[in-house]
Every structure is written in C-alpha cells, then in structure tokens.
C-alpha cells in the first residue's frame, strides 16, 4: 500500500437516543481511489457521510484530511478545503434553471481559489463556466436541457446536477450518496463513464451504494457496514464473499 492517505477516519461513533447508528467505524482512503460503502438499509452509511462532512457532529472519533484534524468543523468549512458531497434525496435549487444551480458553488470562496471559476467578475462569465460544467457531466449543450428549470428535469439529469454541483467546486474528495438509486439501467450506463472520468482526473470518490453490481465495476475497495459496525473491508470480490456480509444482506443460513 502506498502512503498517500488523503482521508483518515478513526473510531467514529454516533448514537441517536438509544440507537447506535455508528460504532467505532474507521478507515483510510488513498488519493485517487474509488471507495465503496455498502450495507443494508439503516446500517448507517448516510450517517457516516454526514459525520465526515460536518452535517452531524460525531460523538467520538476523529476525521483527518491530509493530516489535518477536521472533526466537528462546520459543513461549509469542510467543503471549502475540498471535501464535497451529493445528497441522497436530490434537492436542486428548484426555482432556478439547471445552469443557474451551478452559480452557487461557482460563487463560493473555494471556486475562486481553485480556478473552478476564473472570470473577471462579470456576470456572464460564471454562466459560461456553468454550462461548460454541465456539458462535461452529460447535459447536451445545444439542447434546451441546461436552461430548463431544475424542478422539471428528469431524475437522471437531477442526479447529474447533484454531481455537477460538486464538480464545480473542483474538490479533492467527492462523497456520492446513492447516485445510482432510482436510475434506469441505461441511465446508470451513462453515469459509469463519468465516474471513470472523475477518477482519471485524480478525484477521490467515496460511493455509498445499494446497486452492488454497478458499484463493483468501478470501486477499487469496498467497506461493508451493518447496524453501524464495520463488518468487512477490502477488494469487492472478497467482501461480497464474506460470510458476515452475506448474512447482513440475506439473513443467517441457520434457522
């Protein structure tokens, strides 16, 4: 294993009332890899993302990004240093056209420093960059799709818009919270090259997913969670054969 660890998570725990949502979860992520997080419903995958990206404060544990302790930072500061995320429940800015959705990340202080937006402050510049990014993520530039209201877009495009919102920040890590769920096979087939492309651009991807077959096509390593505990980690082919993982998904064989 190389030593270029970009994100290190140690002993994260979180309880909601009496429910143990996360128990002592930890993992290390290397720069440029695609890391999958799998687990049955309610196993704490989204809570884990929320803890790392600052939307929930973990009760114990430590998150460090490039050696810097970022535990308990507010979400906007975490986003500012280069950790971006999508939301499981897509909520684009409904009242804005699709390309105007990207004005918001492009306006952020990070975009100014990372060159996501290099305009000279004129109004038109961010619009152009926004349409460029949408094209990059699979919106047809010459069609009317980028100019439609976000609320009228089909699910596939809304998912892409979520990703575009992350990419506009030029982040180093993207947490994808179930980007494949609710998509048709052909829409997923369209998304996979995007994931490959982001990976080839050196972005580290952490994907929470239910669609295992699609995830395993892109993921380098996978971690499995069950009832808030990490039950397996490693190559996808190894993890899926793990007895505990099978039990978590299918139930125990002994009755």
């Amino acid at each position, binding site marked *: 294993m190389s030593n270029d660890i970009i994100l290190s998570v140690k002993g994260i725990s979180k309880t909601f009332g009496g429910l143990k949502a996360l128990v002592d979860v930890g993992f290390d992520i290397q720069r440029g890899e695609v890391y999958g997080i799998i687990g049955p419903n309610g196993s704490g995958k989204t809570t884990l993302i929320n803890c790392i990206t600052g939307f929930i404060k973990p009760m114990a544990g430590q998150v460090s990004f490039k050696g810097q302790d970022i535990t308990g930072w507010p979400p*906007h500061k975490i986003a500012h240093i280069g950790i971006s995320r999508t*939301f499981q429940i897509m*909520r684009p800015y409904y009242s804005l056209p699709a390309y105007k959705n990207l004005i*918001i990340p492009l306006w952020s202080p990070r975009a100014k420093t990372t060159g996501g937006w290099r305009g000279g402050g004129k109004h038109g510049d961010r619009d152009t960059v926004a349409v460029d990014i949408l094209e990059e993520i699979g919106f047809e530039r010459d069609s009317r799709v980028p100019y439609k209201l976000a609320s009228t877009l089909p699910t596939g495009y809304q998912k892409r818009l979520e990703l575009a*919102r992350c990419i506009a*920040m030029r982040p180093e890590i993207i947490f994808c919270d179930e980007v494949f769920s609710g998509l048709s096979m052909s829409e997923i087939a369209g998304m996979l090259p995007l994931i490959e492309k982001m990976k080839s651009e050196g972005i580290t991807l952490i994907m929470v997913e239910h669609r295992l077959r699609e995830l395993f096509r892109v993921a380098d390593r996978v971690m499995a969670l069950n009832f808030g505990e990490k039950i397996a980690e490693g190559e996808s082919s190894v993890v899926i054969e793990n007895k505990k993982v099978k039990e978590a998904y299918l139930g125990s064989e002994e009755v």
Partner: protein
Amino acid sequence: MDEMRKERIDRGVRVRASGLYAISSWREMLYLMGPPLFLIIGIIVLPIILELAPYWKRVINIMCVYALLALSFDFLANFVGLVCLGGAFFVGVGGYLSAIFNVYLHFPVYLSIPLATVCGAFLCTFLLMPCLPLRGVYFAIVTLMYPLLATRVIEALDIFGGTNGITGLDSLPNEYVEHYAIILVTLFFLYGMRRFVNQDVGLVIRGIKDNDQAVRASGISVTRMKAFAVFVAAFMGCFGGAYISHMYMWAGLSLFALDFSIIPIASVVIGGGGTLLGAVIGSFILVPLSEVLRNFGTFRIVIYCAILTGFIVFKSEGIMVYVMRKYHQFERWVKV
C-alpha cells in the same frame, strides 16, 4: 351551432426581451417598456397632480414608506426564506437613530437620515443575528417580539424621551424635497432589488431558500449570507423609519407600532409575493384605500378586512402575477 372555446397563447416574452427583437420596432419597445414607464412616470408626476388635493400629498410619502417595508418583507420571505415580522423594528431603530443624530448630536437632515439608515441596518442585523438559524414560523415569532421588546425597554428605562418620544427634529427643506426624496429612493430600491436578486449573489441567497444544506455543502456560510440579506432588508426599513421621523418631526413609540409589520405583509399578499413589484403596487393600493375608508369611521376596519379577504380568496396569486400573465397572453375564441 358551433361550440366555441377560449384559446390562450403565451407570447415568448423571454425571447423577445433578450434578443434584438426587443428593439426591432416601436411597438415592441412600447410593449416591454410601457408598464414600467407608466409606473415610474406616474409616481413621479403624482405629487404635482395632487397639488389639487393637498391632504393626499402626505399619503404619497406614507405609501412609499410602506412600499419600502413591503419590499423588504417580500425580499426576506420569498427570496431568503425568512418570514420577518420585524418591519416595525427596522422603522423604529431607523427613526430613533435619526432623531438621536439630529436632536442630540445636531447633525443636519441630509446627514442624519443616511447615517441612521446605515447604522440602523448594522444594529438590526447585529441584534437579529442570534435568530438567524431559526426558520419559518419561529423566526416570525421572534422578530415579532423585537419591536414590542424595544418599546418596553424605552418605556421602562425612560430613555430617548420615554413615552413622549424625541421632539423637535428638523423637517426636510421643503415639500417637494420631502416627496421626491422618498419617491426616488423607493424606485431605486424597487429596480435595484429586482436586479440584485438575479445577480450571482442574489442567486446564492435564493439558493438558501430552496435548499440551505446544498449551499452549506458548496462551501458558503449560510449564516453569513442570511445576515447579509437581513442587512439589505433592514437598510430599506431603517431608511423608511428615518424618513418618517423627520417627516413627523418626532420619533416616538408609535414608530414601533404593529402597523409597520402587518400592512407590508398584506401588501405583499395582494400584490403577489416573489415579484417585488407586486409588493410596491400592493402598498400603493392598500395605503390610499385605508385613507379613503377613514370616511366610514369605525366601520373602516370591517371594509378593509372584507377587501383583503376578497383578494386572498379570489386572487390569491396576487394582482401583479395575475396582471403579468394576462399582459403576456393573447386570448381569442376558436371553434372546438
């Protein structure tokens, strides 16, 4: 006999307004420029026309102050997602500060009003800062308390003239300065705000209303943006307050009256929320209406409420939204 039905066709306004098409003929230009010009010129010549009815000239000023408050409410409620019932607080803070600058510190009018506006906006933003994480009805309740709290504090500590208020403020130099100061400022803020909400900063602020989590995830501090939005809204409110105190030459507890919070909301409701122009038009209708109804004595409130209810039930989208839609539509009868 043939059955007929009404067909409605929308004009492609956006295409027309942005392209060369918009300036292709006088008719097109008039079509786009007509309504705003009518409003701007109408409000500017109004004081001259009302020379015939001097009593109504004062109403113009009040009308414009309420228009500013309605603008600030509409902006906060429909673009930022903060339902702010603190219009009276903005007016009160602006009015008292202006009185303090003018009477206690002897600043002239043209200095005390702008100073009170800026300082008042800062003060209001600072005082509302703790409530900014609140949303929806909770923010509404807390902001409703602020003006009530302010009156009690002034009463209890007997500061700033106590219940008598501060008297002896300078008036504005003459009647026409008085009218045109508020008219021009109102028009400036109306078109300024309409422009502002479509700028990139404006889009970020509107994003907070749609989805504040995503704004956070984009690396922008939501609290800071909300504070900025409150500053803009308070700026308009405080100007209104500073102006009113100089108009009446008096700053008293009635500057914190609930009217300043409620009537702007009613204006936004009948004018059409989220249009900004609707807020102004709403108060241009409501304020004169309540003056007309003075003739009915105590019956006034009943009629006022009946009209308001009528608007809300039959035209809940608001006048502005309705009129805009009709303006951009052809209607014709066609055979079924």
